């Protein structure tokens, strides 16, 4: 029989205001095995933990139940406290009477009743708990960063500077990401390339950093400290070692009609290409889908002109398998497709563009060499309209429910830059709200209005109608003047919502990292663990976790690096002892459990068993507890009931069910 102590936390008034904690104590004492029960204002405080420790020692407790907040908050705290007092930490159970009770119920009597039942279930479980001992696993002192944008680069640099090896895997032919596509950055109007390129060079030159461009993560196995990752290095068709980056192949390539990804499809590129001038590595790739040689067999111009003999049409995809202790996801974002917003005529007029396209138009290396002009006829615009919140803040399934966060600022930036460079162009911004929290951000927006005379109108645009003369009739609300505006514009720029890179879902599945309905990766705690995934060893950097501007992305990239370093600095990790175990007397060696195990943790061995005096050798399941992650799939699959999960055993869960239904 266990000797159980029950500790009921008030959590200030968080619990005590809705749950009668004294009553919970009183009722707990009636439960079997309970020899001690008390309540305290803050169980997680030093004093609260001391009370637990004292009770364990004085009452010789063999198990405890803490009725408090979610185990996801303080289970570790209380387990450590118990351990310090000499109790096995796995003899601690939490009854969640805050998130699952006091915070969601208003009626005191009802909440108290429920709290009593939750405590009762936890007590019933502890009665069946057994002491468990975690094992140990090693840590591979190398990190993987998925994505080579500013987030990935910064994380990799920070980890490498701490002395650990880092690999960056980047899908496109060059690192640099979205930031390399931007012209200027807010709120200081720095040239984006000028501040990004040095970081790219630093990463490429860093002795601890290895960059795989034109590569994708193909498979991930293992767990925190010991991941095994297959990386597919797509065939570049160019020998990285021989290529000198002279660029002659790109000049001579006869296939020039492929829309340039880097310039958002506003102009074209050759089939052999580097995405942009500062690309790292400065080695082109052959886009086989558009290469004449690969499509028809007749061409080979690039091989002929290459002095270094670097062109290799026979190159094949290569799979590299590496081991990592930590993985950082930095997969970034893209703008949403505008198919659902045809009222803005994006698909009907070339002069309706997204803000990211405007970045390329404003950039000296862009399709118009930095001249602001209409893509339809090359004329300079006189009247420009910016529409905010296109696809953001939509709860109607057409767009995204969230605020994309960066649009208000970049629109102010665009408006300002245009008014600065082309003072005769009128700029009108239609906004719902202007959201500019951040250091020097609101001042920046106000400068656009006060210094540059940008016309901000509160009200959304309802329709953009192309006119026969090529201009665009913008029909909008002016909510402050309470009128409907119909104005003609030469160009319309849509502040298009951003969304996580579509590939992230595939990556999250490989990493078993949680992801929300908007495809943003979920953090372990919204406030306190913002750069960690709930899956141990996976860290989040940049927009893959939520919309962010560059300063925030860099901050978070550093934070993710620190968390990864904290893991890599350890030599050994304690493993979760809540693993499956097979009862050799019941096991009949049918292999059902091994078939459902996602980790290959179950093998079969011939073991000698003593079944009621009969000694015989049987083929039975054996769980490798270093590999087992404790999901429990095998326990349900097992037809003979031999497989059970420590810490969540059949008897324990049934005891909880019984306690709740009693």
């Amino acid at each position, binding site marked *: 029989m266990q000797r159980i102590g029950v500790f009921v936390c008030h959590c200030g008034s968080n619990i005590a205001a809705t749950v009668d904690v004294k009553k919970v104590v009183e009722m707990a004492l009636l439960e079997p095995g309970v020899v001690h029960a008390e309540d305290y204002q803050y169980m997680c405080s030093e004093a609260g933990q001391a009370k637990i420790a004292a009770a364990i020692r004085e009452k010789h407790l063999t198990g405890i139940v803490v009725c408090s907040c*979610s185990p996801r908050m303080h289970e570790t705290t209380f387990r450590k406290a118990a351990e310090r007092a000499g109790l096995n930490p796995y003899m601690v159970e939490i009854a969640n009477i805050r998130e*699952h*009770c006091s915070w*969601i119920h208003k009626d005191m009597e009802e909440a108290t009743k429920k709290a009593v039942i939750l405590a009762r*279930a936890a007590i019933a479980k502890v009665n069946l708990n057994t002491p468990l001992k975690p094992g140990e696993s090693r840590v591979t002192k190398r990190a993987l960063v998925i994505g080579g944008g500013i987030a990935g680069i910064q994380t990799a640099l920070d980890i490498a500077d701490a002395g650990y090896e880092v690999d960056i895997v980047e899908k496109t032919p060059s690192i640099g990401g979205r930031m390399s596509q931007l012209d200027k950055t807010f709120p200081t109007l720095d040239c984006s390339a000028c501040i990004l390129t040095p970081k790219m060079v630093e990463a490429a030159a860093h002795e601890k950093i290895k960059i795989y461009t034109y590569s994708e993560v193909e498979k991930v196995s293992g767990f925190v400290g010991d991941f095994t990752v297959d990386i597919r290095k797509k065939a570049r068709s160019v020998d990285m070692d021989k290529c000198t980056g002279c660029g002659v192949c790109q000049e001579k390539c006869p296939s020039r009609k492929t829309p340039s990804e880097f310039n958002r499809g506003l102009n074209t590129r050759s089939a052999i290409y580097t995405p942009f001038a500062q690309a790292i590595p400065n080695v082109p790739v052959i886009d086989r889908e558009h290469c004449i040689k690969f499509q028809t067999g007749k061409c080979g111009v690039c091989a002929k002109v290459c002095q270094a003999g670097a062109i290799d049409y026979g190159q094949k995809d290569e799979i590299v398998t590496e081991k990592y202790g930590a993985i950082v996801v930095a997969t970034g974002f893209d703008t949403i497709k505008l198919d659902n917003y045809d009222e803005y005529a994006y698909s009907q007029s070339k002069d309706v563009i997204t803000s990211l396209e405007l970045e390329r138009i404003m950039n000296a290396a862009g399709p118009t060499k930095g001249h602001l002009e209409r893509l339809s006829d090359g004329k300079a615009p006189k009247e420009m309209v910016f529409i905010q919140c296109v696809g953001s803040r939509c709860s109607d399934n057409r767009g995204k429910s969230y605020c994309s966060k960066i649009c208000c600022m970049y629109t102010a930036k665009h408006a300002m830059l245009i008014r600065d460079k082309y003072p005769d162009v009128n700029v009108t911004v239609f906004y719902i709200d202007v959201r500019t929290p951040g250091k020097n951000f609101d001042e920046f927006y106000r400068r656009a209005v006060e210094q540059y005379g940008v016309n901000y109108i509160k009200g959304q645009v309802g329709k953009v109608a192309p006119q026969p003369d090529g201009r665009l009739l913008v029909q909008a609300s002016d909510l402050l003047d309470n009128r409907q505006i119909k104005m003609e514009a030469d160009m319309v720029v849509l502040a298009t919502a951003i969304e996580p890179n579509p590939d992230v879902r595939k990556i999250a599945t490989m990493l078993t990292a949680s992801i929300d309905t908007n495809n943003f990766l979920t953090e372990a705690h919204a406030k306190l663990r913002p750069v960690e995934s709930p899956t141990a060893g996976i860290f989040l950097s940049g927009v893959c976790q939520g919309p962010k501007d560059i300063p925030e992305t860099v901050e978070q990239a550093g934070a993710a690096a620190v968390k990864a370093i904290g893991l890599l600095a350890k030599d050994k990790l304690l493993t979760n002892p809540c693993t499956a175990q097979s009862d050799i007397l019941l096991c009949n060696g049918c292999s059902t459990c091994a078939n459902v195990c996602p980790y290959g943790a179950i093998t079969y061995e011939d073991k000698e068993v003593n079944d009621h005096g009969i000694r015989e050798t049987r083929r039975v399941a054996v769980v490798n507890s270093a590999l087992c992650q404790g999901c429990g*799939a095998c326990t349900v*699959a097992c037809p003979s009931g031999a497989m059970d999960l420590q810490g*969540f055993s059949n008897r324990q869960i049934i005891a909880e069910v019984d306690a*709740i239904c009693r």
Partner: protein
Amino acid sequence: MSIEKNEEFRPKIVAFCCNWCSYAGADLAGSSRLTYPADVKIIRVPCSCRVNPMFILRAFEKGADGVIMCGCHPGDCHYSTGNYYARRRMTLLFSMLDFIGVENGRTRVEWVSAAEGVKFSATMNEFVEKIYSLGKNVRLEDLRCRS
């Protein structure tokens, strides 16, 4: 009937929630103060695939009026494939429940991610309402399957 008339029916509802998604979703519902009836009591399991159909039968046997199981969205399981197993097992179990005396509406599987506090609360409200509309689980009692 006349005896029970004055006694307000409060159902017993057991919710199995996986540790990684739906339990966290329930926590988020809590910290966001999204209410749902106190009739729901949550049991934490590591993964929805840990839920043995026996647990659900046991709950009904012991007097539960409804059992709901929540897991990660398909494809998002922390253990890669656990919720697929759970889905298959529950489909099979639910198809037989009516036969043994538990109406279809008394069981439900729902996928709730850690970010879906709103969904968790909405699901629980819906489910509880459904159980109220079904009333006390008397069929099992009539069949003497209930202890």
